[in-house]
C-alpha cells in the first residue's frame, strides 16, 4: 500500500535522512504521480463547482432575492426570465459549468461587468497580499523555529512556543484593528485602509503572516530537532564539520522540505482566509469582492470567487506535492 493522493502535506511528515539525488526511473514515476494528482485535482475542482452552484440556490428563490424586497410579483417574473432562472435546475447547472470551464462566469448583477473581468482586476491584489504575507511569515518563522530547536527546552524554546500559541489565539481581525490604532493613528506611519500604494499592503501583510507563523514555526522547530538528532548529523559532527555548517548545510536542508511544501499549502489557505483581512482594511481584492457580493446577493460573483479560491488551493497543493517529490526521492514511488 503506497501513499495515496490524499496523503498530502497535511499529514504527518517523516524525517528525511537520505540525500537529494534523483534515483533510477524517477522521472517516469514523477510524471505518473503528477498526472494522477492532476486528475484528482480536476475532479475536486468539479465537485467544488457543484457545491458552489448548490450553495447559491440555498436561499430558495433566487429571483425574489435579486428583485429585492419592494418588487411586485410581475417584477420577480421578469427577473426570473431575464436571468434564466425559469429553466430547470440541471439546465442552469450545465449552462453555468459549461461556460465556467472556458472562463466565462456570466455577468455580475450588481457591478454591471462580466464576473471574469471583475476577478481579473481584483486577483493581483489578493495574490500580492498573499505573497507579502507568506514571505513575512517565512522570514519570521524559519529563524524562530531554528532558534527554538537549537535551544530545545530552554527558556528561549518556551518563549517561542508561547509566542506561537498566543499568535494562534489572537483573532486576525482584532490584530488588524490594533495595528490600525498603533501604526495608523498613534505612530501615523501607515495608511489605515484602502488599496492605493505599497504601504497599503504592509499592515494586511503582517496580519496575514500571523495566521501562518504559528504552524510554520512549529514545523521548522520539530523538523530541525529531528534532523539534529539523526545519524547523518552525528556523522557530520564526527567528521569535525563546523557547527554553522552542520546546522545550515545539513540539518536545515532536510528540515526545510516539509516547510517548503506546507508553505505552498499555507498560501492556499491564506488566499482563502484573506477575505476577513481584506474586508477590515478595505483592500479591494478577491476576498473583498466576495464579501461585497454576498452582501449584495450577487450570486454569479460569489460562485466564481469560491471556485477561483478553491482552484488556487488545489493548484498550490499540487505544487506542494510535486515539490515534495522533487526534494524527497523516497516519496517519488507514488
Amino acid at each position, binding site marked *: *500500500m*503506497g*501513499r*495515496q*493522493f*490524499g*496523503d*498530502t502535506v*497535511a*499529514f*504527518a511528515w*517523516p524525517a528525511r535522512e537520505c540525500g537529494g539525488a534523483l534515483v533510477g526511473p524517477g522521472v517516469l514515476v514523477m510524471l505518473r504521480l503528477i498526472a494522477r494528482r492532476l486528475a*484528482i485535482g480536476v475532479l*475536486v475542482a468539479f*465537485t*467544488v463547482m457543484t*457545491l458552489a452552484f448548490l*450553495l*447559491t440556490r*440555498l*436561499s430558495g428563490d433566487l429571483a425574489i*432575492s435579486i428583485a429585492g424586497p419592494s418588487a411586485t410579483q410581475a417584477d420577480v417574473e421578469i427577473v426570473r426570465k431575464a436571468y434564466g432562472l425559469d429553466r430547470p435546475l440541471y439546465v442552469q447547472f450545465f449552462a453555468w459549468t459549461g461556460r465556467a470551464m472556458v472562463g466565462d462566469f456570466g455577468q455580475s448583477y450588481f457591478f454591471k461587468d462580466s464576473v471574469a473581468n471583475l476577478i481579473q482586476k481584483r486577483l493581483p491584489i489578493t495574490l500580492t497580499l498573499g505573497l507579502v504575507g507568506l514571505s513575512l511569515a517565512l522570514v519570521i518563522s524559519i529563524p524562530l523555529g531554528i532558534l527554538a530547536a537549537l535551544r*530545545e*527546552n530552554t527558556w528561549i524554546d*518556551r518563549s517561542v*512556543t508561547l509566542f506561537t*500559541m*498566543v499568535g*494562534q*489565539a*489572537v*483573532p*486576525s*481581525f*482584532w490584530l488588524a*484593528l*490594533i495595528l490600525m490604532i498603533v501604526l495608523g*493613528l498613534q505612530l501615523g506611519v501607515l495608511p489605515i485602509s484602502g488599496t492605493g500604494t505599497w504601504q497599503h499592503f504592509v499592515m494586511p501583510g503582517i496580519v496575514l503572516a500571523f495566521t501562518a507563523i504559528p504552524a510554520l514555526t512549529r514545523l521548522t522547530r*520539530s523538523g530541525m*530537532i*529531528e534532523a539534529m*538528532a539523526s545519524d547523518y548529523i552525528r556523522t557530520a559532527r564526527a567528521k569535525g564539520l563546523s557547527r554553522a555548517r552542520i546546522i545550515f548545510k545539513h540539518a536545515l536542508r532536510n528540515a526545510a522540505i516539509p516547510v517548503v511544501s506546507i508553505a505552498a499549502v499555507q498560501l*492556499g489557505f491564506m488566499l*482563502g*482566509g484573506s*477575505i*476577513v483581512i481584506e474586508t477590515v482594511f478595505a483592500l479591494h481584492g478577491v476576498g473583498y469582492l*466576495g*464579501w461585497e457580493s*454576498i*452582501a449584495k446577493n450577487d450570486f454569479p460573483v460569489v460562485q466564481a*470567487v*469560491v471556485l477561483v*479560491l*478553491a482552484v488556487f*488551493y488545489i493548484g498550490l*497543493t499540487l505544487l506542494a506535492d510535486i515539490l515534495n517529490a522533487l526534494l524527497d526521492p*523516497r*516519496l517519488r*514511488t507514488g
Partner: protein
Amino acid sequence: MSEPIAIQAPQPSSTGSSRIGTAGFAIGIAIVGLVVVAAVIGNALVPQDPFIQDLGNRLKPPFWMEGSQAGHLLGTDQLGRDYLARLVYGARISLLIGIMTVITSGVIGITLGVLGGFFGGRVDDVVLFAITTRLSIPVVLVALAVVGLMGSGLGLVVATLGLLLWDRFAVVARATTMQVRNHDYVSAAWCAGASTSHILIKEILPNIASHLAVVATLEMALAILLEAALSFLGLGVPPPLPSWGLMIAEGKDYMFFSPWVIMIPGVALAVLVLGINLVGDGLRNLLGAERLR
C-alpha cells in the same frame, strides 16, 4: 523499493513532547474553568442587564480609567449597555458555539475517518476525496455566503461551521484507526465473532479517543475564532446578542477614541482561545497522543 508505511508511522520523538509543561495545562484549565463559570452563573452575579440601553451613559470607560462609573465595572458600550454584563453573556455564546460545532463536526469527521481508516480501499479513497475537497473550500467565504443567504442566527452558524470543520477530525481518526486496526485485540474480537459495528464502536473508538480529544480542543478554538470573525463581518450571531466578535464590530467606529471598547472583547477572545489550546496541549502530553498535524 522504499517502504511507505514505515515513512508514515509517527515517530515517538521529542517533537510532540511537553514544551509549556504542566504549568501551561493548569493555566489552561483555570482559564477555561473561569470562562465556563462566567458563562453559567455570570449574569446572575452581574447586577446589570446586558440588553438595557442607557443613551445618557454611552461609552463610559472601565474602572482603571478616569471618568469611570461605579456601577459599570468595565464601562458601557455605544448604546450605554453595561460592558461586563455583555462580556459575560458573550462567553456563553462563544462556548455554546464552540461545543456545538465540535459535536457536529466530530460526528461527521470521526465517522468518515474511522470508516476510511478501517475499511481502506475504495471506502478510503472516497473519504480521502471528501477530505481533499473539503480542504479546498474556502471556509470563511462559504460560511459567510450561507449565513448571508439564509439569514443570521446561532443555530445556522453552528450548522455551517459544523459542516465545514470536520476535516481534522477525519484526518486524525483515519490515521489512528489505521494504526489501531491491526492490533491484537481487534483480531481477537474478529475471532470471537464480533460484528463490524461492535469492533468499530467498542474496540476502535475507545482506543483512538485520546487523539480525538486533542483534535476537539483545536476545533473548538477554531470554531470560536471563526464565529467571532463571522459576527465581526456582520454575518454571524445577530444583534443585539453580545457575541464577542459582534462587540468588536460595534466598537470599531469608536476605537480611535475609546480603544478599550475593542480591547476588552478582543483580549477575552484571545485568552479563551489560548486557554483551550493550552488544555489541548496538556491533554496531548498527558495522553501521549502523537502530533498528527
